[in-house]
């Protein structure tokens, strides 16, 4: 099963297995990792599962579709960067084994 490392804003890292087909958001929620709120439960409707993708993973993970709901919701989130994504929109696949994401200082 692929592994994902979630790094909290304070630096605490959590490495957990996330099954293929499950979202990166769900992986955090299922493992009670703090820092991802996921208020809407994965509908791309709240932007409270915002993460930063570590640079070496950016190309493989990809960007939100231009003009789509994720881009729109992200545009209302705080402290977004070039490598911001909503983790509910990233589905785990085998080649993402080892993925590292960082959390912002809060979800809004």
């Amino acid at each position: 099963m692929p592994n994902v490392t979630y790094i909290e804003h304070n630096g605490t890292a959590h490495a957990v297995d996330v099954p293929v087909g499950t979202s990166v958001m769900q992986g955090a929620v299922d493992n009670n990792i703090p820092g991802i709120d996921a208020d809407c439960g994965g509908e791309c409707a709240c932007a409270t599962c915002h993460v930063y993708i570590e640079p070496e993973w950016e190309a493989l993970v990809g960007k939100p579709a231009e003009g789509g709901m994720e881009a729109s919701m992200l545009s209302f989130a705080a402290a977004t960067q070039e490598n911001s994504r909503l983790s509910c929109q990233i589905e785990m696949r085998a080649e993402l084994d080892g993925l590292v994401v960082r959390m912002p200082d809060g979800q809004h």
Partner: protein
Amino acid sequence: MDVSLHDSALENAKRDAWSRPLDSYDMSNPDYYQNDTYFPYFDRLRAEAPVHYTRDSIYGPFWNVVRYKDIMAVETNHQVFSSEIGGIQVEDQPKNLARPSFIRMDPPKHDEQRKVVSPIVAPQNLLNMEPLIRERTQNLLAGLPRGEKFDWVENVSVPLTTMMLATLFDFPFEERAQLTYWSDVAIANVRDPLSPVKSEEERFDELKKMAERMSALYNERQKQAPKFDLLSMLAHGAATRDMPLKEFMGNLALLIVGGNDTTRNSMTGGLKALAENPDEYRKLRENPGLVDKLVPEVIRWVTPVIHMRRTASQDIEFGGQQIKAGDKVVYWYVSGNRDPEAIEEPNRFIIDRARPRQHLSFGFGIHRCVGNRLAELQLKILWEEILARFPMIEVTSGTERIYSNFIHGIRSMKVRIPA
């Protein structure tokens, strides 16, 4: 309403809800919310007619959307379900008195204006504001009477939210009662005998006075360097600095109501819920760490905003019904938040739910409540400070609610803190 009176009113409502023809349903009647008798009607709609057409009401015909998932689907499809065509309440604003604001706009203008003000409630600024909110909460609680009855709304919920608003606007502190007054004016149902305004014209005139007072401050801020308050942000924001008067009125009213009414009613409704569920209150006293989960459950339970409305911009088949371009679509948060298909045991108040944040009270999609995390912070601090200070607060009366189908407002609730 008195508790035993309410029990019998609810029994009558149950009989009525399950026997009357669905065709005759009109959930826009504020009586249901003033008396808290709406539950069985929405239970039946969710079960039998989840997308239901009300043919006749004083606001004209409209669709009702009552299930959690369907409400989410409407809110995330802003291309079809417009906020701009007809506004966000079942009751239209009269055309000549309409006050646009970004909650009543679609992209792109909505996005541009929302982004001007949203940094004030971003996580970093909440950290900056937390000590001030805590100090004010501590001072207010320390001054409450012991061993005698007093009104929780008047002495706690209103003062705390009013101070917060004054800070957000950097509004003169000694004039801050005006902010609460304008908030009440903005949401009042003019047919309510206790409403501060009795007609739409009167409402418009009062909100115009608000705009006049605010524009004096706004003009000062425009001349100063940008700072971190709502008026300064509006005055310097590219998308907001040249607003026409009606839009200025609309956006001010939006920010005042948004920052005030919802939190005020959650502060009151949360205590009411705990008093009515003594086992949950005990659980909380024994484990104050549950406050983080209590707060979202209170916000679900209270559901301060009763409904939102959209207008179809095109024909669409939705939930097996044919909705036509121009139709009013009203979705009921008070129903979705009690939908057993989305929330386990939705009619129980449970302060340690596994996923308490999954509720509809803030809405979803691009119009999701911008101040949600600030509201949660205010409630969290209030409960942390209450638990640190008072072993018990007794609710000694029922609640008196406002006459509204939009804001589930509590006008008064008497309490007593044992000496």
